């Protein structure tokens, strides 16, 4: 027996999209408040105040936090005991089209060469939907809208296996090159290992992790990034990155792929556990 109807699913995904665009996750709000408290630079402090005020208004008015409502990434966790009698990809696209019109979301999706806008935030390969198959009866959907300002500042390099000292330098150089453009304070996701494409995936996953404790290596990278003093919006300040997260995968003995994905302060994500 199917456990969830398509209608119920679509209704909830629309809600989830709206939630992701209008309410910033608690961990990020707390991190921004702590950053505001610690900040010694008055210009940076004024930027952080504006950010906190903006978060408040967006939540109250149910308006998107940022006019760049992003492109959409969906992560679906589905257990082997779950029976679904509809096409999940299709249902997600329908939800996104509906939310685009009603919230509204800015139509951001265009053909890469003709630049023709699809007007409904869907297109070939977008939204990006991945499925994780699990044992048991889980059914959970995660949504991450991703803006271009920070995504455009991301980089990937294929280092020689002997060059692992270069990783820290590459991360800091990427943040330096980005300056104020990705809307700092940022979250830096680093993917190390795998292959060219796996490293990119890992870095995105790392950037989207909850802002929990950093391990020693992550803390070292975060401290190095913050010595740059780029600060909120690149106008100078103590905090350039709220966190640096590193995800790794095994790789070919002859490779060392490293990807750095940058996430702006509007660290939007939401999830719904259906079962």
């Amino acid at each position, binding site marked *: 027996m199917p456990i969830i109807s398509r209608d119920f699913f679509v209704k909830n995904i629309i809600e989830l999209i709206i939630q992701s665009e209008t309410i910033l996750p608690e961990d990020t709000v707390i991190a921004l408040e702590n950053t505001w408290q610690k900040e010694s630079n008055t210009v940076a402090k*004024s930027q952080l105040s504006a950010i906190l005020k903006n978060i408040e208004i967006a939540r109250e008015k149910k308006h998107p936090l940022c*006019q*760049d409502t992003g492109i959409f990434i969906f992560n679906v966790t589905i257990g082997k005991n779950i029976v679904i009698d509809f096409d999940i990809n299709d249902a997600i696209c329908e939800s996104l089209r509906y939310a685009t019109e009603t919230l509204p979301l800015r139509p951001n999706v265009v053909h890469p060469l003709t630049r023709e806008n699809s007007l409904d935030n869907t297109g070939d390969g977008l939204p990006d939907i991945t499925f994780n198959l699990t044992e048991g009866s889980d059914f959970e959907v995660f949504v991450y809208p991703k803006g271009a300002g920070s995504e455009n500042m991301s980089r990937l390099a294929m280092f020689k296996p002997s060059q692992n000292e270069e990783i820290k330098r590459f991360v*800091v150089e990427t943040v330096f090159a980005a300056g104020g*453009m990705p809307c700092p304070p940022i979250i830096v996701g680093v993917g190390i290992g795998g292959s060219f494409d796996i490293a990119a995936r890992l870095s995105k996953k790392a950037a989207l992790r909850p802002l929990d404790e950093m391990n020693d290596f992550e803390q070292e990278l975060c401290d*190095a990034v913050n010595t740059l003093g780029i600060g909120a919006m690149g*106008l100078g300040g103590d905090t350039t990155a709220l966190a640096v997260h590193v995800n790794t995968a095994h790789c070919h003995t002859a490779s060392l792929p490293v990807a750095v994905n940058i996430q702006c302060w509007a660290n939007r994500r939401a999830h719904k556990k259906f079962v």
Partner: protein
Amino acid sequence: MEHRLTTPLTKEAILKLKAGDILYLTGSVFTARDEAHRHILDALSHHRKLPFGLTGAVIYHCGPLLRKTENSWQVVSAGPTTSERMTQMTPALVENTGIRAIIGKGGMKGIAPLLKGRCVYLAYTGGCAVLAAEGISRVANIHWQNLGMAEAVWEFEVKDFGPLIVGIDSYGVDLYEKVLEKASEALKAIVMASDSK
């Protein structure tokens, strides 16, 4: 220092602004991003009159999100976009139109000398789109609507729009450049430490 100014901006008014100052703006601002810049430059190079006057005007690097109501537009979100994309097109705009201020985010590398004595760059907090919408009282006009919602030129009436930080003043002082100079010192130290390992 904090300032409050009303558009159109005079040269005297912008000469009072120093990098790092805070400004609240009242009057009108024109949104313009990549496509609008291309269109303005195209009109200028063919000596065609623009459908809007830019003397003393304020350009806002913004692709807003609006909701169409029965006979007007409601501004939902209108934060700044990354100014860097407009850097190459900005000299022609500053030299030929009489604009006095550019609002955006992230700064524009190398334009400080161009702005000297005539224009300022103002930073609006990136991502603060609903806060910005609060400062916009109405849509006064839409130009080049065929470019689409994000790329069209929206003439917004604003009231106490800000806080805007003077990122680049009209004396050649660029706050972003100062920050990057310091950052590059810090970067050098990290690179040297990694090279010596």
